[in-house]
């Protein structure tokens, strides 16, 4: 090495003239080399300086460095955050489901049932009014039934308004129905009062009441039923809102736990950390349980639909067809009960116009009704429901037999009296059908309510697990980590 240095010096001396050595030593060619080295040295020193500053800043945090216990503490904080996130995610799925299910149980299912009872009650009022009218002044029990049906309708409308809550559309529909019930009630009372006073024009008043019911009140009630059913469908959909976030959040947390477990296994040379493993198992088990609960809730709500609200809807459709038949009979009966002096002219009109149309309507109604009733009563679950359904069919058949008997008598001379007498019997038989159909509606409503309650109970019970499980798992996870941290202290 010394020889090389001597040799280098020698070579330099040989290349430079002795006399000009001082001047040529600072020539423009050699000057930049010195500056570059100094600059590089300064840059290196600045970098060292910056590193020292960074170390000084982070030294209080990491102490002597980023060691294992400190990493474990950070992981523990991560585990806490993960479980908080998990609880929040689960809650964001379960709580709205519970809320929607509660809404179904407390508001929407009863609302639909109330709407259907309202339909039935209004129809009964119509039928009882006609029977009261046809029974003459002595028909006070029929009149009382009419008044009872009106009272019941008004009371059901109030209940519907309460159940409608803040839904402005439903509330305004109910308000309209309430007003129309009042108007219908007034018309009916006026008709019976005029009849009691022997006013021959009382028939017009009854016709006006009946017509008002058909044109205004019934369509309003039907529209309300439809709106209530739509709301039921929406609430049901909310109650079964997607639960996919539950397993997704669980998978994220389980992955975090696996990562932490892997690190702990590496540093502790133990494959399993009991706390972390238990925490993971709890998360998995709770998630599986939640999915089963959601599935069971859906099954309950499906049963509420299949054995409660849907048969009820089908039965209501059958009832509407039955009401059409009965309305046709009422029209015929009212026409037949016109005063004697009118019947000379009108009986021909009845024979030629009303009766054929009436019979046609009845036949169409019966045919439609038969199909609808069959569908409505098909596949019902439960012995009591099937028994009441069977009774409903038998009472409808009895009514149809009476209708047929009246039709056979329609050509006789005593047309008016026969129509009057048979119409009273028909209205009574129809009332029998109505009441048993109502019993069936009651059973459907009770079934829908019971299944919806069962679904809610499931969810609410399981929610306790879903609140407790992340907390327990978090504690177990922290316990597992704390043991490792403790080994380093």
């Amino acid at each position, binding site marked *: 090495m010394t020889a090389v240095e001597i040799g280098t010096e020698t070579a330099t001396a040989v290349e430079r003239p002795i006399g000009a050595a001082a001047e040529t030593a600072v020539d423009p060619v050699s000057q930049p080399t010195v500056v570059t080295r100094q600059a590089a040295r300064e840059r290196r020193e600045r970098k060292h300086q910056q590193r020292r500053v960074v170390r000084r800043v982070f030294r209080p945090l990491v102490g002597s460095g980023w060691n294992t216990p400190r990493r474990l503490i950070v992981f523990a904080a991560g585990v806490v955050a993960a479980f908080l996130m998990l609880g929040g995610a689960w809650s964001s799925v379960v709580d709205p489901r519970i809320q929607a299910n509660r809404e179904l149980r407390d508001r929407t299912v009863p609302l639909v049932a109330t709407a259907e009872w309202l339909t039935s009650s209004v129809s009964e009022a119509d039928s009882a009014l006609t029977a009261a009218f046809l029974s003459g002044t002595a028909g006070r*029990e029929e009149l009382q039934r009419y008044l009872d049906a009106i009272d019941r309708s008004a009371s059901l409308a109030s209940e519907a308004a309460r159940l409608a809550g803040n839904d402005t559309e439903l509330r305004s529909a109910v308000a309209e129905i309430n007003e129309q019930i009042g108007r219908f009630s007034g018309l009916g009372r006026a008709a019976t009062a005029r009849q009691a006073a022997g006013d021959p024009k009382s028939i017009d008043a009854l016709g006006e009441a009946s017509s008002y019911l058909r044109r205004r009140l019934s369509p309003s009630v039907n529209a309300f039923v439809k709106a209530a059913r739509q709301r039921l469908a929406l609430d049901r959909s909310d109650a079964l809102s997607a639960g996919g976030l539950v397993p997704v959040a669980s998978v994220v947390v389980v992955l975090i736990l696996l990562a932490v477990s892997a690190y702990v296994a590496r540093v502790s040379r133990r494959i399993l950390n009991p706390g972390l493993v238990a925490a993971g198992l709890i998360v998995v088990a709770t998630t599986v349980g939640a999915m089963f609960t959601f599935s069971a809730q859906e099954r309950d709500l499906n049963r509420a639909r299949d054995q409660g609200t849907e048969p009820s809807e089908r039965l209501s459709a059958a009832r509407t067809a039955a009401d059409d038949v009965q309305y046709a009979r009422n029209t015929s009966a009212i026409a037949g009960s016109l005063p004697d002096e009118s019947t000379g002219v009108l009986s021909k009109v009845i024979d030629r116009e009303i009766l054929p149309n009436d019979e046609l309507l009845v036949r169409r109604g019966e045919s439609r009704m038969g199909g609808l009733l069959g569908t409505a009563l098909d596949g019902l679950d439960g012995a009591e429901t099937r028994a009441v359904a069977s*009774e409903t069919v038998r009472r409808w058949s009895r009514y149809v037999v009476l209708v047929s008997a009246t039709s056979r008598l329609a050509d006789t001379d005593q047309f008016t009296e026969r129509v009057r007498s048979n119409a*009273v019997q028909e209205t009574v038989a129809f009332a029998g059908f109505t009441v048993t159909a*109502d019993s069936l509606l009651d059973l459907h409503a009770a079934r829908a309510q019971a299944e919806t309650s069962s679904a809610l109970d499931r969810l609410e019970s399981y929610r306790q697990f879903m609140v407790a499980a992340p907390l327990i798992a978090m504690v177990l996870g922290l316990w597992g980590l704390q043991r490792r941290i403790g080994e380093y202290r």
Partner: protein
Amino acid sequence: MTGSRRSALPTGGVTATRREMLRSFGLAAAAAAAAASACSAEQVADSGVDRLRFLNWNDYIDEGPDGTVARFERSTGVKVAYTPELNDNVEMYNRFAPDLRAGKRIPYDLLCPTFWMAERMLAEDLLDPLPIAELQNHANLDVPFLQLPWDRGARYQMPYQVVVAGIAYNEALTGPVNSMGELLTRSDLAGKVSVLSEMLDTVGLMLLAEGSDVTNVLVDDAQRSIARLRDLLASGHVAAIHDSEDYLAALRDGTVHACVAWAGDIIQMQRDDPSIKFVFPTEGAMRSFDTMVIPKGTPNRSAVAKWMNYLYDPSNAARVTRSIQYISPVLGVQVALERSGADGAELSNSPLLFPDAATRARMFTWGGTTADELDALLDDFAALQEG
């Protein structure tokens, strides 16, 4: 048999008011309850699904080896302990209500109170619902009984027989009496008139005569009718308030020429004395009914269902109607009687058993009063009898 089904609530000769009666019944009930509980424990212990214990009014079914009970037993294999010892609605209520409220079983699976007592028991939650799933013949129940406001759809009671109160007169002693107005004002009937001790029927008929609505009774109206009856008793126009046995005896021996009466009794009486006539008053008749109810906690529901189904078969119901001749609440009885021939066919044409639509439209059932209001009216009516 005649007339003994009805032992009216405060009967003639009872000197206590109804509330006093209730109190005394309370004491009696305590003693009876002790006896009954021992009895019920025994009876309930050996009860099974093939055994039915039915408490009914006296003489209110066809009895004997070929009677309804015997035929039912042979047909179904269910043993029936038939007890015709129901004498009074209130007495029955006071005897069983405390146990039922306490959740204890009583020694009967089936009771047959009058409708207003059934309504009260239902309101107090002392009844079990009917086993509808096993009652195929529920469909044969006549429609008006489905429309009762206190039991719509008849889910808690099955009517047993319908009782109609109207006017009976002896054709041999007086001319036709067609209205309550005539009964209570005609001078030729003064001192020869009696009314029934069943308040709901007597006062109900008087309310109808005054144009009141008995399906929705106003207490003031009812009290006015009771006051009017007091005046009629004081003036001597109405000779007596008779119970179910006495009024028939008085009608038979001529002491009374015309009276408030029950149709079923008069139909039976007409077999022996055709001069006794029954009319539905022009103002309207009172209709009530006794009804089968299941006390809470009854173990033998299946036997009860079989019994009800049996009774609601029109041919079986027709047999009961032919025997006791009250109006049946079962649809199809008229046709079944017609088909049975002989006296059954004759009965099927009876306007008293099968009133036409116009007459049915003039039959009314008491309603609209609360239990307290009814108690008060019964007290006032009982006071008349004391006087």
